[in-house]
């Protein structure tokens, strides 16, 4: 990683400032912020000042429904849409961070040719010329390259383009595509199939490299199902079981009852061993593994509630084996649903891009439109896409940033951010939704994919007209208006895809070639295309604690054998390609393989994203393989600059996260003796309960907190000094090797201690208690002695070493939360502005507050509903009931701080606290 001088973060601030004024001018809102803007649909909220709009955001081409809270016409905060089946009211880190990308001052703002800004009319003329040239050639030489497309409107327009130009071809590329899953489905069923697991109903799950709780378009749904399955299982006294066999540690693996680190070369043999023990018919070859019999027995016991999931990076044969095992268990209809894939054209995407590259290299391509993809950064360098691209005459790139591909293409067109453009999307389960703009376009020159595609057909159509046309055809003219309005208001536009019941082909099992068991590179997703987003860059990755960059992940033993200490620089060589990467040992990494996170080392990702970490695509084989044997590693003897936060604020580890066997209970939380006088909280008493058993460490709460509370980004240098500002951090506790549940995640906000150690030590009374038990920080009184932070046993107080107000005071800031100046302490407030808003609303309506009416930002974001907030004194409140639960414990309770935030212990099979 190159050094990051202070100037870079300062530069970022200036850029942010500049962007704020541009954004303000574009939105035409220079006046007081009491004024709203006309928007495109009826608001869901009550008053126009705080309206919220239902829309949908894509991840890997598939949509998750969100509600966007706007303030005076500016998008301020995203929350999940409870009605959308891929969100269920929760958000992931990418959805939460989208609002920062929307306001990114480094977004592309101008149409460019060869890097020089041009007026839009020049583009129209060039497109008209291209249209004329292509019409005479019947479209020969026209190629479209997009990301994965599930949007019905874009699929329709691409279909129309291909019909109008019979010689044209459409290619899709997604660096995270799982082409082997498609190949496995073709082998098993002869058709593409989407596997939708229902982890809520599954009693025993085997994940073969699959990461259903990890980042992805279905994460929110699967994590919710998983946690509700655990809750119901605990109530019934029969916890569901989760087995994970994987090479790289994943969030699912961290929460597995039994996790088997498996070298990629052993994956197929392991799957075969389980399949053989299950008695799956039609096995072409047997396999053996000591763990297989036990796992098969658990699956067989679960019967139709058993489930086998194969994930990214597994060979096609393992995917086919997983599908066959599910058929043998009778799982379809119970613990999983098979549907038609939501993508408009499921195809092996690495092969699709390779086809395009060879066509370009053979001079068969005259016109190339790259819509919303960035192959120069995301495709394997070995493919030679960049060299082939130079042979194409007319190249046009449409993207939100002037990225690597924009620099390599002749034309560049700014794409609108999804929050400011019309569109539509399908969720992983196939549910369609219409995307509506929630703000006036901040980039006036931006043109959507739909507009560019329709420009190939004739006069360009607006994106809104294109989307409306799609749905007018689907719904019919008669009830179009009413259904359109209803779809915009609800945020969903139809039903999920129906289940299909394909039959297993007799020749489904096609064994793959045995991979050599040499040192293997395993590629893994990271924050990838969102490298420009400072929130995502600064958020420590859950399993490594690394921020602002990536590292090659080794298992500790392999690293020691190679003579690599944490943070050492290593030279990785694969088939003659070389890259320098930092080494980071991670417990749970399978021996004999090295995990290389994709998406680092960007060359043109702005001040935030450029040069963070190393670029694993420079090693990745041209066919986009997820695992590549034959990796050579050499220590260079230099140190790499890594930013790791895990050790920053870690409290005493002994007993910090109790682990309980099913049915076991802890001693109830009882107040002990205290030197401070007692105080009766007679009114409300706010408290939070966090279920460590449900926490999957996804970081959504932490980014939600950052967005809600205007928490600044400090940059890698300051973060490395331990000056990060996150109000909510997630501590990871690694279990001893071979213990169930490899890691526990414990989110730590302010505990709002009743006997808060921070309060008596403040010389200026800047941190005080209020009558409802909130530990209140008075920023205006604080003189910055930092004594409170020294005296806080939980280390949840954050000090403003710099003045971040200029960088934060953009239209994106939440106006409900004040900005803190330099030199004052800050911390979690339990979202006190939300408490006040709810209290005022209840007062205006003349009623008492309802339980659950106040939702903190972290609670609202959590996909597994691990966080509960409410009034301890309210009869029947959920938080009071959880506090009495046998799993309830107080963090560092022996210090007698009487924290209002308490935790529910993790349940682990066959282990006691």
């Amino acid at each position, binding site marked *: 990683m190159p050094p990051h001088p202070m100037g870079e973060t300062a530069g970022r601030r200036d850029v942010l400032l500049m962007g704020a004024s541009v954004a303000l001018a574009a939105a*035409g809102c220079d*006046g*007081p912020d009491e*004024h709203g803007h006309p928007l495109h649909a009826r608001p869901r909220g009550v*008053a126009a000042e705080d309206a919220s709009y239902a829309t949908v955001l894509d991840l890997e081409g598939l949509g998750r429904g969100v509600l966007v809270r706007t303030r005076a016409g500016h998008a301020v905060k995203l929350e999940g849409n409870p009605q959308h089946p891929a969100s269920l009211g929760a958000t992931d880190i990418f959805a939460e961070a989208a609002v920062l990308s929307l306001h990114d001052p480094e977004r592309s703002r101008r149409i460019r040719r060869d890097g020089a800004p041009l007026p839009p009319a020049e583009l129209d003329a060039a497109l008209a010329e291209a249209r004329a040239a292509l019409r005479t050639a019947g479209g020969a030489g026209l190629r479209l390259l997009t990301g994965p497309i599930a949007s019905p409107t874009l699929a329709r327009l691409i279909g129309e383009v291909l019909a109008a130009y019979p010689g044209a071809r459409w290619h899709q590329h997604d660096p995270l595509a799982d082409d082997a899953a498609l190949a496995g489905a073709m082998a098993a069923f002869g058709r593409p199939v989407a596997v939708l697991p229902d982890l809520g109903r599954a009693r025993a799950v085997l994940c073969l490299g699959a990461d259903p709780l990890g980042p992805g378009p279905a994460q929110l749904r699967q994590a919710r199902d998983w946690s509700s399955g655990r809750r119901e299982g605990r109530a019934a006294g029969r916890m569901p079981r989760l087995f994970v066999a994987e090479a790289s540690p994943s969030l699912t693996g961290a929460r597995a009852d039994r996790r088997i680190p498996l070298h990629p070369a052993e994956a197929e043999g392991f799957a075969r061993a389980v399949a053989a023990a299950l008695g799956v018919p039609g096995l072409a070859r047997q396999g053996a593994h000591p763990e297989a019999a036990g796992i098969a027995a658990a699956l067989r016991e679960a019967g139709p509630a058993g489930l086998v999931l194969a994930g990214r990076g597994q060979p096609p044969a393992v995917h086919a084996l997983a599908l066959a095992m599910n058929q043998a268990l009778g799982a379809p209809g119970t613990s999983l649903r098979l549907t038609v894939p939501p993508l408009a054209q499921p195809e092996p995407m690495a092969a699709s891009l390779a086809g395009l590259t060879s066509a370009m290299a053979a001079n068969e391509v005259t016109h190339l439109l790259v819509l919303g993809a960035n192959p120069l950064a995301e495709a394997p360098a070995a493919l030679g896409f960049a060299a082939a691209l130079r042979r194409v005459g007319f190249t046009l790139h449409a993207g939100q940033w002037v990225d690597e591909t924009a620099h390599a293409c002749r034309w560049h067109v700014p794409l609108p951010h999804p929050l400011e453009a019309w569109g539509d999307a399908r969720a992983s389960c196939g549910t369609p939704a219409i995307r509506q703009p929630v703000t006036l376009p901040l980039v006036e020159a931006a043109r959507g994919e739909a507009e560019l595609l329709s420009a190939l057909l004739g006069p360009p159509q607006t994106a809104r007209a294109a989307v409306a046309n799609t749905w007018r055809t689907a719904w019919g003219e008669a009830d179009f208006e009413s259904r359109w309005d209803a779809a915009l208001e609800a945020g969903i536009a139809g039903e999920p895809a129906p289940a299909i019941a394909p039959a297993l082909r007799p020749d489904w099992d096609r064994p793959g070639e045995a991979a050599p068991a040499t040192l293997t590179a395993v590629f893994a997703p990271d924050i990838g295309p969102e490298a420009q987003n400072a929130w995502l860059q600064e958020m420590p990755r859950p399993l490594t604690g690394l921020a602002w960059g990536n590292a090659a992940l080794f298992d500790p033993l392999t690293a020691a054998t190679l003579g690599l200490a944490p943070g050492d620089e290593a030279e990785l060589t694969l088939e003659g390609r070389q890259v320098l990467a930092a080494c980071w040992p991670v417990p749970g990494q399978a021996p004999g393989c090295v995990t290389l996170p994709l998406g680092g080392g960007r060359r043109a990702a702005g001040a935030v994203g450029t040069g963070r970490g190393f670029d694993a695509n420079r090693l990745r084989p041209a066919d986009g393989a997820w695992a590549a044997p034959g990796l050579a590693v050499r220590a260079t003897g230099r140190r790499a600059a890594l930013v790791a936060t895990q050790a920053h604020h870690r409290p005493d580890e002994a007993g910090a996260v109790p682990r309980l066997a099913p049915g076991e209970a802890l001693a109830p939380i009882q107040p002990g003796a205290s030197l401070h006088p007692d105080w009766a909280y007679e*009114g409300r008493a706010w408290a939070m309960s966090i279920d460590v058993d449900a926490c999957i460490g996804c970081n959504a709460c932490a980014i939600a907190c950052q967005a809600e509370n205007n928490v600044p980004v400090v940059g890698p240098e300051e973060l490395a000094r331990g000056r990060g500002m996150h109000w909510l951090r997630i501590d990871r506790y690694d279990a001893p090797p071979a213990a169930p549940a490899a890691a526990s995640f414990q989110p730590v906000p302010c505990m709002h201690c009743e006997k808060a150690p921070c309060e008596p030590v403040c010389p200026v009374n800047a941190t005080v208690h209020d*009558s409802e038990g909130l530990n209140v920080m008075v920023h*205006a009184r604080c003189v910055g002695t930092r004594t409170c932070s020294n005296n806080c046993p939980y280390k949840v107080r954050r000090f403003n070493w710099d003045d971040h107000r200029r960088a934060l005071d953009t239209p994106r800031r939440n106006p409900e939360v004040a900005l803190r100046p330099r030199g004052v302490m800050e911390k979690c407030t339990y979202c*006190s*502005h939300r408490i006040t808003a709810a209290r005022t609303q209840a007062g205006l309506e003349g009623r008492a507050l309802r339980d659950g009416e106040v939702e903190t930002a972290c609670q609202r974001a959590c996909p597994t509903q691990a966080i509960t907030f409410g009034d301890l004194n309210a009869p029947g409140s959920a938080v009071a009931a959880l506090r009495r639960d046998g799993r309830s414990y107080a963090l560092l309770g022996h210090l007698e701080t009487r924290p209002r935030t308490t935790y529910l212990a993790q349940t682990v099979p066959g282990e006691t606290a």
Partner: protein
Amino acid sequence: MPQVFSPRSDRRLRLALSIGAAMLLLILAVGFAYARSGAAWAVGKPAAQPIPFSHAVHAGGLGLDCRFCHAGVEQAAAAGMPTAETCLGCHSRVWTVTPQFAPLATALARGTPVEWSSVHRLPDHVRFHHAAHVRSGVTCQTCHGPVWEMPRTVKTETLSMGWCLDCHRDPASRQGPADQALARDPAGGPPPDRPFGLAARPVMHQGIEVSPLTRCSTCHR
């Protein structure tokens, strides 16, 4: 050893020291008085507005209700400012020719808000909810003064934290019937000022009672 300083220089030093101390006290006293005076809080100082709007004409002369332009005052935190449509609803028929209305035409044509300057602006860390106060029977003029007499809108109160607390410590003295909060009482106006600072509540910080109206988190974010 001979005396280095004569008795005269000693006297001069003493005089200079006492004058210095007196000056310091004077500066402190003047500074304190200024900070407590209305001038430091821009009381009586009109803000530059895009249109020379007169509350005296509209609210006083014509008798328009406050809610005609500030529609959110009974429901929302912000009372709301009038849009170009609100103004032009009447001014497209009466008093239409004045070039002073150019900002209205611009706002209407571009779909942007009229850029009114806020006179009663509270700091960023203060949360104020108009509807909550109106529902509690606090009249408009308690905080805003007799707006209907003002040709150019000005602050009549400091809106300082001490001023807010005067009321929050003794709300009953400023509250009227909730349904009369929007009525105008030319003879009324805010009750006489109470003693400020320590004189108001001598032992506030040692005091046992902290009413919900005076705890930090009620008004601060």
